[in-house]
Each structure stands twice: as structure tokens, then as C-alpha cells.
């Protein structure tokens, strides 16, 4: 095991105030440590010096909860492909490196403290339609709904999204299209999601825009940053579903209604 001497440029900010970069030397970091363990070591040293440790989000530290964030050297979750910050290890860095550590930057993700941001906009998008309306107890026998393996696998590809927000952080427009596309796409692909497809698509896209995320300019930095490698073809599908939903919404879905219907 080797020890690394690193120089960190860490973003420090209190909510509602302007932030700045703090230069922190991080000598003798074991290369077997994870990136977050490196931050733990740095924080222990700050505490020992009587300074305030760097606040960052983290929880499961096994790449599934989506809590950890950080833009490392300009890349959300750092340079490794398909890897969350918590799974990134220090052996990917060299002694003498300068590492820039910043929050996920987006107007829709305001900074709470240092590297901690408020990603609750994602929850509100989900509340605007990211569900199947089915009451507990009202479900039919599971195998009454047949879902071909290919369709189920595709839905699972989209469902792998961990909601971390790296897609937003990587996009120069801070667009949430990949997230919304994956979430809407999972349900829009499955037969269970069909009855509410129009409502869901329109509702989630409207909420996405309302939260202040930017639009997609088809540059696919989101896909490259996604720790779960969600494909941008889900965005293709969201675009298609949105166009179809608008037409159905405007022209009555091809269904006739009695007097008094809208």
C-alpha cells in the first residue's frame, strides 16, 4: 500500500452565502482508501486542528443509495466510468495531484453546506407522476400481467437509476432530462404504466421545467457521468412520449365523451 500526498481545492459554502475554494493539503493518504475515506481522514485532521470539517453527503458507501455526490476534477463522481464517488478509490490518483472538489452545481440543486446540495427537486418530479396509481391490496395476481423478458430487461435498465443527480451536474445546462427520462421511461415501458402514461409524461416534464433545470442539447455528458450508465436513448423515448402525450392531450386521445366531458 502506497501513501499519496495530495493537494485539495475544496468548495466551502454556507447556505445562502457566496462560497469559495479552500486549499487543503492532504499528505499520506493510503491508496487503498476510498475517496470518501480520504475525506474522512481530511476531516479528522481538520477537527484535530480545531477547524470545521468539510460537509459532504454520503450514506451507503456501496454505490446504490445515490446520496454521495461531489464533482471531482470537473467530473461528477470523478473520472472512473460507471462509478459513484463512494466507490472511487485513491489508487486512481497519483502523489502530487491537485484535486478539485466541488458540489453538484445547478440552480435546481441549491447548496446547503460545502458539498451538500438540496436535490429534493427530484422527489417533487416523482410526485408529479412517477408512480402507478394502485392502492395497497388492489393488485391482481402477479402473473396475470405478462411482461416479455426483453421489455422487463429494458425497464430494469431504466430503473437502475439511483437518483444521484450526476446527470444534472455533468450537463452544461444542468438538465434533468436523463433522470426524468429514466424514471418516466421505466413505467412508460411497462404494461402497468400504460393507463397513466399521458398524465405521467406531461406532469413530470412540467415539474422538471418548473424546478429550473435546463433543457437537453443532445451532448450526452449525462450518460458519460451516470454511475449506472443509463442510456440517453431513454431521452429519445421521453421526447417521443412527450410529443404523443401533447397530441393526445390537445386532441382528445381519440376517445369520444358524452356531454359535459372535457
Amino acid at each position, binding site marked *: 500500500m502506497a501513501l499519496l500526498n495530495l493537494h485539495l481545492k475544496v468548495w466551502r459554502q454556507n447556505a445562502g452565502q457566496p462560497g469559495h475554494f479552500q486549499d487543503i493539503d492532504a499528505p499520506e493518504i493510503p491508496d487503498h482508501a*476510498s475517496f470518501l475515506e480520504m475525506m474522512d481522514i481530511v476531516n479528522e485532521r481538520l477537527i484535530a486542528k480545531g477547524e470545521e470539517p468539510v460537509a459532504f453527503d454520503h450514506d451507503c458507501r456501496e454505490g446504490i443509495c445515490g446520496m454521495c455526490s461531489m464533482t471531482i476534477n470537473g467530473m461528477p463522481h470523478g473520472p472512473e466510468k460507471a462509478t459513484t464517488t463512494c466507490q472511487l478509490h485513491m489508487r486512481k490518483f497519483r502523489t502530487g495531484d491537485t484535486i478539485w472538489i466541488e458540489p453538484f452545481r445547478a440552480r435546481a440543486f441549491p447548496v446547503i453546506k460545502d458539498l451538500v446540495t438540496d436535490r429534493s427537486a427530484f422527489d417533487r418530479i416523482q410526485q408529479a407522476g412517477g408512480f402507478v396509481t394502485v392502492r395497497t391490496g388492489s393488485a391482481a395476481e402477479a402473473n396475470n400481467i405478462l411482461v416479455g423478458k426483453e421489455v422487463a430487461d429494458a425497464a430494469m435498465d431504466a430503473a437502475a437509476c439511483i437518483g444521484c443527480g450526476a446527470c444534472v451536474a455533468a450537463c452544461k445546462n444542468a438538465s434533468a432530462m436523463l433522470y426524468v427520462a429514466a424514471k418516466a421511461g421505466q413505467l412508460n415501458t411497462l404494461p402497468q404504466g400504460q393507463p397513466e402514461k399521458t398524465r405521467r409524461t406531461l406532469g413530470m416534464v412540467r415539474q422538471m421545467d418548473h424546478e429550473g433545470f435546463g433543457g437537453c442539447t443532445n451532448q450526452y455528458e449525462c450518460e458519460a457521468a451516470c454511475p449506472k450508465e443509463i442510456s440517453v436513448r431513454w431521452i429519445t423515448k421521453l421526447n417521443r412520449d412527450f410529443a404523443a402525450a401533447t397530441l393526445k392531450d390537445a386532441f382528445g386521445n381519440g376517445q369520444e365523451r358524452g356531454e359535459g366531458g372535457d
Partner: protein
Amino acid sequence: MPLDSKIPSGPMALKWSKHKQDSKLINPKNKRKYTVIVVGSGLAGASAAASLSELGYKVKCFCFQDSPRRAHSIAAQGGINAAKNYQNDGDSVHRLFYDTVKGGDFRAREANVHRLAEESVNIIDQCVAQGVPFAREYGGALANRSFGGAQVSRTFYARGQTGQQLLLGAYSALNKEIARGGVEMHTRCEMLELVVVDGHAKGIITRDLVTGKVEAHAGDTVLLCTGGYGNVFYLSTNAMGCNVTATWRAHKKGAFFANPCYTQIHPTCIPVSGEYQSKLTLMSESLRNDGRVWVPKNAADCGKPAHQIAEQDRDYYLERKYPSFGNLAPRDISSRAAKEACDDGRGVGPGGRGVYLDFAEAIQLFGRNTIAERYGNLFDMYERITGESAYERPMRIYPAVHYTMGGLWVDYNLMSNLPGLHVLGEANFSDHGANRLGASALMQGLADGYFVIPTTVANYLVTQTPGGVTTDHPEFKKALEGSASQIRRLLDGKGRRSVDSFHRELGLLVWDKCGMERDKAGLEEALRRIPELREEFWQNVVVPGSGDAANPELEKAGRVADFMEFAELLCQDALHREESCGGHFRSEHQYPDGEAKRDDENFCYAAAWEYTGDLAKPILNKEQLTFEEVHLQVRSYK
């Protein structure tokens, strides 16, 4: 105090139906007058909050994470059991019930387990309807696999992330109710205290982790769905934020804590690589289907690279000791065998706490591609963390704390002995006895939340006037002041040691003395040292920052303070239970061949501990366990 488990009368298979019929109903108009507080938003919490809101109750739900979707249920990999018998391989509700009681080493409550097995089938229906993308056959029907040594294929799964998919299902149901206005969701909001008014749980004190505001919330009943206490060991597969605070605070307010010594160790985790280590990563148990576990026969070989150790110098100890189950021996047995090998000085890797899990033979037999297809993602994860390729050399694994079977004592209604306090999921003690089978945790969390509590909560609520207690009650004022003063005490300390350093020291001590194997002397030593460490914590901890803003160190400090107290009860329970069963192995109680020796005559009970105000002297209450359906027998996997 006598414990009334309120198990319905009648034959086992009819108890739950009978109980549902006998349970009280509340008029829909009146339901909306009741406020239900749900703490935790994992599988149990999210499913309960959503289902109760659908019924018309007013629900307030709290989680410390930034989104309910991040609760640690999300990390479960393997799957969820259900007695659907889609494979036509002879599964049934009774068989799942039987397997769970036996797997729990006869320390679970039969009636609860039977109900769990009954509801398992409904869970799958509900999740599929929500759009959970379970694995499918080409024809479109649900796929199953066999898991955790079960002889039938009853496990439903969604790649290696069943937990995430089920949680997202429950989260979507919760979102639907939040959008409808039925659930008021509080994220980044941690419960600090339970408020008890006239002997009933009537509210909680919380701290907003963004603003630091300490607030009181009143309700007609409180549901704790706050998970397990595995982080008392510091290193575990739990998420960093998992903690015992909610259940421990409830315990100190009168709720009994049952069987804390039942802790599950998972055999296939990535070993510790250094003292900076913050968490242990679990590798799916499925690896043991093709990997062979071994250590060198001679301690002198431990430093050599694996490929330089000749075949005849390797000890495939699981195959040697358990010829019929071999590398697939149950979790507790293979974990202990790994510890024995390492204690014998034959462990491999840094610190000598690791054993090999070798795929060389499987790769030779099936080809590298087949192995990559089966385990590619796990091998990638292993390489990311260790920097080693498991295709080139054997993996190193070691057991780690994974799940805790103990928890707050609850009756058949999932209500604690403290009226009004309900406890769901991993936080309660009820369904897994001394050992949990693979793919059963998800099942229990969802059964409790979707199907049990919506029926049973009314049995308590009908006895209460809705909104009878508000936060104006003096008990709330007192609790608020108590929480605020603890925060001040932590912040005002002029100590020098960080919170993490205390947590690490506590964890090492508890793991050493009350981990995979326990004995009287070690436990007594732990019971001497824990109060000392706790004393030092309060004298010498340093918590930087302030209380009125986001302050992760302060959050950790409060949690560690509770672990410091809880650890003592854990060791007391382990010390009192003079037998070995499931996840509790006392080295004094084993057969000559090293197998666990249960003592049904003296310990066939759930130990429900009562707080007395003196941490050193809790009172033991016993719920005797009777086995009507599954007859007590020695659990053997030879």
C-alpha cells in the same frame, strides 16, 4: 411485567384471517381525524405511510436522508421470498413458514412467521402492479431463483438490486400519497426523542438537519420503522447513517428491547484493508455457488501469493467440515468457520483477517466468459475496491455484520409494550428469531408496512380520542428541553477526540467481544470497558460547528452517544443467554464438533429488556416461545 403477545387463538393457518376479522374498524370519516407518525422511510416505513394514507389517516413521515428513496433497504441485493410456488417445486405457505422458523433456530414467534409467509404472495402482486421490474421468463411470467440454501426456488429478484427496486416501488406509492396531500414528508429530519404522555406514545422530537431546528410533532400513534443497530460495530454493511437512536430512545421511555444479541454476520464481504476503513461491502452470497473457500494449511504460507501454494497445502475447510453443503453452508456457520481459520493464524491478506474465495476451478470448468456472465458486476466491484482481479487470483473475503434480528419487542399487532408505539421491519424483533434467512428481510419490511399495520393499527386507535394530545402538553416541552440540552452538552464539550474515533473504538470492542463468537469472560470485559468508554466520550468528545445549521458531526455525535449506551445492553443480553443459537454463538455452548448447542429447556424465550434508569441493571422480561407446528429440533447442515 407479563408480556401479552396477543396471538390469536385457533389453528396456525387461520390465526391471521381470524385476527383480521376480529380487528377493529374505523369509519372512513373518522380516519382522517387520526394522525399517524411514521419514522423511517425504508421498505417498512414507506409502505406503511403510503398504505395508511390510502386508508385515509393523516400521515407524517420522517427520514434523515435527503430523500425517502435513499433508506438503506435500497442496498439489499439478492431478492425477496414469496410462497407463490410458480416453479411447481412443492413450495407452499407452510413450507416458507417452516423454513423461516427453522432457519431462525426456533427463536421466532410462530404466529408472526406464519402471517409473514401468508402475506408474502400479496407483496409480489402489489410490487408488480407498481411496476417493479422483476426478472422475467421469455414468456413474460415472473422468474425465480433459489437463494440462501433454500431447496425450492421462491426468490423473486431484480438483477442484483432487488432492494432498490422494491424501495422505489414503495417510494412511488409514498409519492402518490404525498402528491395527494395524505402524507406530509419531512426529509433530512432526524428523530431525537419519543414523547410519552400518560403511558402512551404520542409524538416525537425531531431535529431538522438543514436548519438545526428542534421541533415537536404530536400524533395519535407512532410507528418506528428505523431499521437495525448493526452500526454499533462501527464497521458493518449498513449505511453510514444507520443508527439505533429511535429505538433506543423509545426503549429508554419504556419500550422493551428484545434479543439484541441476535446479530447476523454475512460471510462474503470484502475484508478490512486499513484503519481508515469506514464500511464493509457485501458481495452477493451467490458467489459461493461457484467459488471454493480455502486458507493455507500452514500458517507459514499465508504471506505467499495464492498461486504459489500447492493444492495439497490448501485447506478447503467448508468442504472438509460440511461435506454435503460444502461452500454453501448457511451464513452463520460459514462465517464462524472463517473466523476459526483466521484465529488459527491462517488468514490471508492485510491483518490476516481474510479467506480465499477461489474461482480458478470454475473458470477452468466453465470458461472465463461464463463466470464473467454470472458474476461480472461483482468481480468489477471487487476490483474497484481492492484493485485486484478475481479472474487472476482468488478473492479475499471475510464476514461482516449485516443484519440485526433483535429489536423492540412487539405483540401480534406490531405494538410494543408501550401503548401507541408500533415497530415495523428490522427495528422489531418478531419474525426472524435468532437468524434470518436470505431474501427474507425485504419480505418482512413490506409485509409489516403494506399488509399488517393497516389492519392492526386500528386496534389501538379506536381506544384513543383523535388529536387528544397536542404539542402544548408539558411532556412535549420537557422532551424538547431534554433534546436541546443534549445538543448543547455535545457542542459545549471542550474535548479533543473526534466522534468517529470513539465510534471506531466502541465498534472494535463490541466486534471483538460480542461479534461472531462470544464468551463469558470477553462479555464481562466488554461490560467493564463500555461504561468507561462512554464516560470518556462525554468528557473528551469534540463536536465542531453550531447547532443551528447543517452539522454532520453533531448528527453523528448524537447517534454514537446512543450506541455507547445500547452496546451495554447488547453485551448484557449476550452474556445472559447461556446457549448458542443462530447469530448468537457462545463458545462455551457447542458440541464437540463445534456446532452451536441450543438450550431449549432454559432459553426458549424472547428476552425483552426493560430500562430501569440504570444502564447496568435492566430488567429481563421473558416471552416464552411455544412451537405448535414446527417441532423443536437441532438445526444441522452436515
